[in-house]
């Protein structure tokens, strides 16, 4: 157990923490989504790095190779990437709508606008 045998996890760890920090700390909605995407990317590395064997080749079977990297994590991450982009697309669509309704994409400002008592009266129109 030494520090360098796990350096792949340290990279992943750093990315995950940055992503999470951006999501929670930043008020800008688009930046939040970027942070979310970084957090997800770090997970891709968490899955992929253990699957690699040094000296192995991509898992496309051919007579000239004998050692292959693990294909299963790659399949899972393909799925995860697609899920990630789907989430991003939906999130951005929401941001665009929010921007149209509130004329702002800053979380603090939007929350302030919602506290506006005039807003409750809008419900009065059936």
């Amino acid at each position, binding site marked *: 157990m030494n520090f360098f045998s796990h350096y792949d996890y340290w990279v992943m760890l750093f990315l995950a923490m940055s992503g999470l920090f951006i999501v929670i700390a930043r008020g800008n909605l688009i930046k939040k989504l970027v942070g979310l995407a970084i957090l997800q990317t770090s997970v891709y590395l968490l899955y992929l790095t253990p699957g690699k064997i040094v000296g192995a080749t991509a898992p*496309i079977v051919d007579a000239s190779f004998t050692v292959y990297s693990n294909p299963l994590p790659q399949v899972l991450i393909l799925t995860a990437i*697609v899920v990630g982009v789907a989430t991003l697309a939906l999130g951005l*669509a929401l941001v665009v709508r929010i921007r149209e309704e509130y004329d702002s994409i800053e979380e603090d400002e939007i929350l302030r606008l919602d506290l506006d008592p005039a807003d409750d009266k809008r419900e009065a129109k059936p």
Partner: protein
Amino acid sequence: MKNDMVLRVIGKLLIPFILLFALYVQFHGDYGPGGGFQAGAIVAAAMVFYAMIYGLSTARRVLPDALVESMIAAGVLLYLAVGFAGLHFGGNFLDYFVLDADPVAGQHRGIFWIELGVAITVCGVLVKIFYLFAQRGQDQE
């Protein structure tokens, strides 16, 4: 960008090759890297490229909205249909072994069709999302 002669000519030259590459990625996915997702994304990229050069309305004439929306649904349905075919021929859901007398050929056939379904849906969704975002931009101006 619409009036840039260089872009228009190069675009016209490039797009067929992009589409050809997409087909290669789609059908060569069994032997090299690639498959339905990547091919669908590449076709969608070609479409986005086209729309950027020739304008959104021209792109919409080439690939109308209704068609794109049908593509989104059709891909999923194709995938599900392969699943039901497995049921129909006496296997479990998504069972490809029974799709052909020879199990290996059946697997091959199943994989071919579902990859096609995936490509259609992915392409449809990406193009549709691009249309919607671009359309919003024009509405605002």
